């Protein structure tokens, strides 16, 4: 009987994990904590937030970073989001692929690279003012649910990162939660640099 209970608990946790990916969590405390104790983390102010309409997390995070770097000239946010969506969103896949995100960023005049990230690398990039796009898996290994987030800060004190994710601006992901979801994509990380404001990013 204990075995059955354990299996049931595991199933419940799996289900909860599968569908809790976009559940909003309060972020104000973490951001305030970073501001109060900057030595324990970093937070990049002013990363534009594009709410992710259904299945549009790829275009949303790319638009955030492109706009943050001052790209796309005078296009309105809506126009920018529409352009990126048209370029990277694939209806038949119900989502966006990293190769398309790379191709869009490069075609728009940015430097873009995809690589195997790590928490150390993430912290270093955030400290130097560079938001990173992470590709995470909110589902299971056997049933992946790919999701893009753009990380804007971290706090070692709170053991958490903050990221624009889905409909949540500065959503909080605990290190453990992020590690679990990020590991399932091989820690895939997209770094976009360059653009008109690139020189003012490093500080």
């Amino acid at each position, binding site marked *: 009987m204990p075995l*059955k209970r354990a*299996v*049931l608990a595991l*199933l419940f946790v*799996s*289900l909860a994990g*599968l*569908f809790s*990916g*976009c559940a909003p969590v309060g972020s104000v405390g973490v951001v305030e904590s970073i501001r109060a104790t900057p030595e324990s983390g970093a937070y990049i102010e002013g990363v534009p937030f594009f709410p*992710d309409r*259904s*299945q*549009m*997390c*790829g275009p949303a995070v790319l638009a955030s970073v492109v706009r943050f770097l001052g790209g796309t000239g005078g296009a309105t946010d809506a126009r920018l989001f529409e352009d990126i969506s048209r370029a990277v969103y*694939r209806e*038949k*896949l*119900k*989502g*966006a*692929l*990293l*190769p*398309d995100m*790379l*191709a869009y960023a*490069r075609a728009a005049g940015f430097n873009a*690279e*995809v*690589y*195997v990230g790590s928490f150390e690398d993430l912290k270093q990039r955030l400290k130097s003012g560079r938001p990173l796009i992470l*590709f995470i*898996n*909110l*589902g299971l290994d056997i*049933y*992946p*649910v*790919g*999701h*893009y987030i753009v990380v804007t800060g971290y706090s070692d004190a709170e053991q958490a990162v903050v990221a624009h994710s*889905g409909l949540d601006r500065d959503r909080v992901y605990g290190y453990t939660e992020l590690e679990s979801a990020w590991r*399932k*994509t*091989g820690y*895939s990380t997209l770094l976009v640099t360059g653009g008109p404001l690139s020189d003012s990013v490093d500080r």
Partner: protein
Amino acid sequence: MNWVKSWYFKQIAIVLALAVLCIGAVPARSLAYMVGAELVSGTDTEISNDRAQDLETVQRTLESKIVAKRLSDLGLSTDEVTERLESLTDADLHHFASQLESLNPGGGLVSGIGAILIILLLVLVALKMTDRKIIIK
């Protein structure tokens, strides 16, 4: 006539034997010579470079195939796969071939049918584990 023929062929045989002896006695110096050290090292470098290039080509080909198959499995057409492969650098290809999980589409939502199937499966497993049955009357 026979003695004339015999004598005639003996002379030819002697001349031929002497000619072969003379030719064989001449050392064939042009067939062997020392190769300079600089030439050897240059050749090694060239071979090494060729080998490295060959390996890179093989690696890129294999990685292209792996990535192409993955993209094709996702449902992309041949043209769409080719277009994406052409846009990738060697480093990109290496990453995607090494981390195939990163080639899943990111949409952030569980598709409806997939979610229903998973829920159904998990519920059935849960019912089985608790020895419960659903009886429809």
